[in-house]
């Protein structure tokens, strides 16, 4: 169910209801009769990263959605429970609640727009969530993962460093080290990470859903995109594909700044990333149409 529609250049902003009764906020960018190659019956659901990566990359997601809509794709962006302008508190959200949110978004699109193909596109934590959701939902036509986080536990553990930095700034000393913070979370308290309260549901789920554990199977067409600045020689994702022996997803190494982090210069254009992503979706959608897979 959706409430209160608004319109910016054909974009529709609204709240839609999760099966648990909470309201999720989303913005739909309908396909425009464009001059590009996109079939208008293909929809893309964008899965946000979390923490400040969501806020830093917000405009890039808007720019991508507007560009894709011009190219003939319908794009749906939404906030997870406990994030953005959706209901709930961050500390109550976990990986499973976020996967359920993506499933709700898929259902909403399927019921309301009936696209013939739905692709999931995610950035960072959102990319990992997109891969995990697609593993459960076989009706998804494909997944594009922009710089996915392969080891969620490590990622969250690293984020706790920001709590230590804050302790040093405020108290001139570390009062609780990382292990103590982890123990606090597992005892049911929350720990503040850059303003977000990290709680037990997220941490516990990270251990279960870790892609790095090696038991992850790629059921769908997948494009894993490594995003690195020109100076970086990060091979994490390429190595992961090589060593884990997963069924072969497509791989793209894209030279681009890490736009999900605070940057010195704002809003890179990301033309290459956008074009290659849409091109891959276009080819996969055509293949999907031919083979029915």
């Amino acid at each position, binding site marked *: 169910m959706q409430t209160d529609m608004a319109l910016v250049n054909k974009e529709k902003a609204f709240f839609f209801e999760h099966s648990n009764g909470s309201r999720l*906020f989303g913005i739909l960018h309908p396909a425009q009769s464009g001059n590009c190659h996109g079939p208008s019956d293909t929809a893309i659901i964008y899965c946000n990263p979390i923490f400040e990566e969501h806020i830093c990359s*917000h*405009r890039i997601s808007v720019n991508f959605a507007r560009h894709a809509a011009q190219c003939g794709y319908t794009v749906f962006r939404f906030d997870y429970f406990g*994030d953005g302008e959706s209901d709930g508190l961050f500390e109550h959200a976990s990986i499973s609640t976020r996967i359920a949110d993506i499933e709700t978004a898929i259902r909403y699109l399927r019921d309301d727009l009936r696209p013939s193909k739905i692709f999931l596109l995610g950035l960072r934590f959102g990319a990992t969530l997109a891969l995990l959701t697609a593993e459960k939902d076989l009706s998804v036509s494909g997944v594009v993962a922009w710089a996915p986080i392969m080891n969620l536990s490590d990622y969250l553990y690293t984020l706790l460093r920001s709590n230590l930095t*804050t302790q040093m*700034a405020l108290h001139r000393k570390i009062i609780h080290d990382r292990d103590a913070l982890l123990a606090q979370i597992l005892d049911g308290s929350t720990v503040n990470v850059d303003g977000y*309260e990290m709680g037990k549901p997220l941490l516990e789920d990270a251990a279960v859903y870790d892609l790095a554990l090696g038991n992850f199977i790629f059921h769908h067409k997948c494009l894993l995109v490594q995003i690195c600045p020109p100076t970086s020689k990060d091979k994490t994702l390429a190595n992961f594909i090589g060593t884990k022996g997963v069924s072969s997803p497509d791989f793209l190494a894209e030279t681009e700044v890490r736009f999900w982090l605070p940057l*010195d210069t704002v*809003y890179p254009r990301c033309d290459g990333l956008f074009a290659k992503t849409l091109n891959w979706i276009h080819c996969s959608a055509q293949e999907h149409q031919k083979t029915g897979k």
Partner: protein
Amino acid sequence: MESPVIFSNRKGENLFGMVFRPESDDRKHAPGIIICVSSILYRIGPYRLHTTISRHLSSHGYWVLQFDPAGIGDSEGAFEEKPLLEHHVDIQKGKFCEDIEDAVDFFLKEYHLGTIILAGLCGGAVSAIIAAAKHNRVNGSILLAMPILFDNLENKNQFSEVSVISSGVQSAHILSGMILRLTMLQTWKKIFTLKIAWKNELAIVLKASSVLFSRLFDKARTFLLRTKTLNLLDIPASCHPRYNFLLQRSLISFLEKNNKVLMIFAGEDFVTWAFKSEFQDKVLRPGNPYKAHCQIEIIPHANHIFTGSEPKAAILSIMDTWLGKHFHAL
């Protein structure tokens, strides 16, 4: 209950916002609060702070709007690709003010509100007070961690010892330390064996001396301000090279119309102490004419963006009390 809204700015660009409605719908004379974006981060604010504040205030009977200025978040418009620091300085010079004034007009007209309060954090606070001074239907402002100094565009890519010398006490300490070192044999050994970075040392001496002299000049200026010889709308209270005089003029002109201002600072934030030394100690001294209209609070053990549940709770509690006192929601 929240609803997404679209309104146009004076350039015809569609701006995107979210309105938080109070449960009670008695809007006659009800105050509306607009939360201004802090920099280039979109309307929900850092770690979703704006959304938290908006939901809290709407649950206490206030109408709240958070919106994206042109080029930000989900609004239309382009945003120039240039260094972030330059954008910050543009914002501190009022880049978003026209969009904020348009948001005030939209909020007043569309929801039939009695008065508007502008709120913001950091650059959002600067934008809020500059826009508030220009709009006669804005009667209150909540300013969180408001920087009185422009961001430092010099040496932005490298740390410079010279650039951090900013206070008189610090300069006096540096110069006295240097004089003390000149009495030591080891220093002279270093001088004669050319093991001293002359350029760096000279730059430090020059900067410290100039800061010290400007502080002395400041004291004379403060004395004149106290004796009302100088007008705060015409003369900056500080001669700090990065002092934001537009902000001073806006704040003073807003207060002179008997509007209400709440300023909340963080105890562990450079911005707080810069504000204290460059503005508060000079203008808002005991017995100042704005005392009844301007409240300043410092939250201890808080950083610039008030991360942590305790500082956040303190902000909400201070806001509740201040709003209840001056703008009782109906």
